[in-house]
């Protein structure tokens, strides 16, 4: 049991230290691949890091102290959710804490009382409403396939959980587009040049706080790709490692492809499609698991 604890702490430390760099590189590759898809040269791979360093050096000016505090809480809770996941602990707790983190971001946006930020916050609430059912169904599916919410139990499994949860995986990929803020579901705030509502949730957030949001986004990207990899873990370490890396690359490339090929939808469509997908794919998968 002691070895387990040491391993958990080691993985948590590795996550906290490495995830921002990995997330930044992924984000840089994302922008480069996006540029190539649009026939451009595109920025350097390290561009997201330059952006954040610049933001950290800006003059500090905030709308109110509460906003900075909530943005900081957003970062802290994203990191805590990541620690819980990557140290192999409770998946359900990780899901609930990441939702709590996004609630702090929403409160930060509301605290400014700016019309653009408020509209962004309302849309962010809608996004939470859209992806949450599917993510919770995924947690239920994990429990039924794995027998527990703990991630480290997956390493003892005979088969990866993708075998039991293929439909839930497809549904999860669908809502992942909302989670990583990609078109067609980037209605509350988007990256790159395609903007709407000025900058949505982050309209009133600038300088250092905006840098914190970017850093939390890097942590989030790594965490969500970890959720993708979770579906391919089983008792054979080598094969599952290859499957995990391959699945993460394929899924993220798919996200970039979707981002570049779809226009932003209205919130009504987002709500409709994400709930239909959650009920259909998630529900059918859970029912089949119950019968078997």
């Amino acid at each position, binding site marked *: 049991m002691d070895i387990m604890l040491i391993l958990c702490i080691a993985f948590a430390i590795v996550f906290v230290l490495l995830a921002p760099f990995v997330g930044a590189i992924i984000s840089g590759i994302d*922008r480069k691949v996006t540029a190539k898809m649009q026939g451009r040269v595109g920025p350097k791979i390290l561009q997201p890091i330059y952006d954040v*360093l*610049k933001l950290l*050096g800006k003059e500090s*000016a905030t709308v109110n102290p509460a906003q900075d505090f909530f943005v900081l809480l957003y970062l802290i809770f994203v990191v805590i959710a990541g620690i819980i996941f990557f140290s192999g602990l409770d998946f359900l707790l990780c899901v609930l804490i990441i939702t709590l983190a996004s609630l702090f971001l929403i409160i930060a946006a509301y605290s400014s009382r700016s019309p653009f930020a408020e509209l962004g916050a309302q849309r962010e609430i809608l996004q939470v409403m859209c992806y949450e059912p599917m993510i919770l169904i995924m947690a239920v599916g994990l429990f039924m396939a794995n027998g527990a919410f703990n991630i480290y139990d997956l390493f003892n499994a005979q088969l990866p959980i993708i075998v039991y949860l293929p439909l839930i995986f497809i549904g999860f990929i669908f809502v992942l587009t909302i989670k990583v803020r990609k078109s067609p579901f980037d209605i509350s705030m988007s990256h790159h040049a395609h903007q709407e509502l000025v900058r949505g949730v982050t309209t009133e957030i600038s300088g250092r706080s905006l840098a914190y949001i970017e850093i939390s986004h890097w942590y989030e990207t790594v965490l969500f790709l970890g959720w993708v990899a979770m579906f391919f873990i089983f008792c054979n370490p080598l094969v599952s490692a290859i499957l995990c890396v391959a699945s993460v690359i394929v899924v993220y490339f798919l996200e970039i492809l979707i981002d570049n090929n779809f226009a932003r939808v209205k919130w009504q469509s987002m709500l409709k499609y994400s709930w239909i997908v959650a009920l259909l794919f998630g529900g059918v998968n859970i029912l089949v698991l119950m019968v078997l």
Partner: protein
Amino acid sequence: MSGTKKSPWIIHYDGSSCNGCDIEVLAALTPLYDAERFGVINTGNPKHADIFVVTGAINEQNKNVVKQIYDQMLEPKIVVACGACACGGGVYRECYNVSGGVDQVIPVDAYVSGCAIKPESLFDAIVAGVEILEQKRQALKKSNKAKPNISTKDKA
């Protein structure tokens, strides 16, 4: 290390003009010229921007708008006046409602000549502008260190 020189985010405002320079600025952001290879992002939000790109002359109507956008931007920041109208009023200089170039309202750091400007000359201005931006950042850093605590000073 600082990313100031490598990540100039711009905000673009068009005053009163024929919109020629306006279209050229947008052309600079398209895949053909690809401003993002210099790290340029068109933000549309003064709070996120480092470079204020103004096209067109300043008139009595948009004076306050330009001033407000400038005031909302955080230091370090620079202003680039694009085209003959933004530099000094251009062909609209003698109009009854035109006050002249952008420098009538806010301090300008780089002037781009041409009617209309070329995207290439806008890039030249931005590349020259980031040097000024870096100098301003270092000056800001120094003054921040030198200042003890403004709020307590003000109260006294």
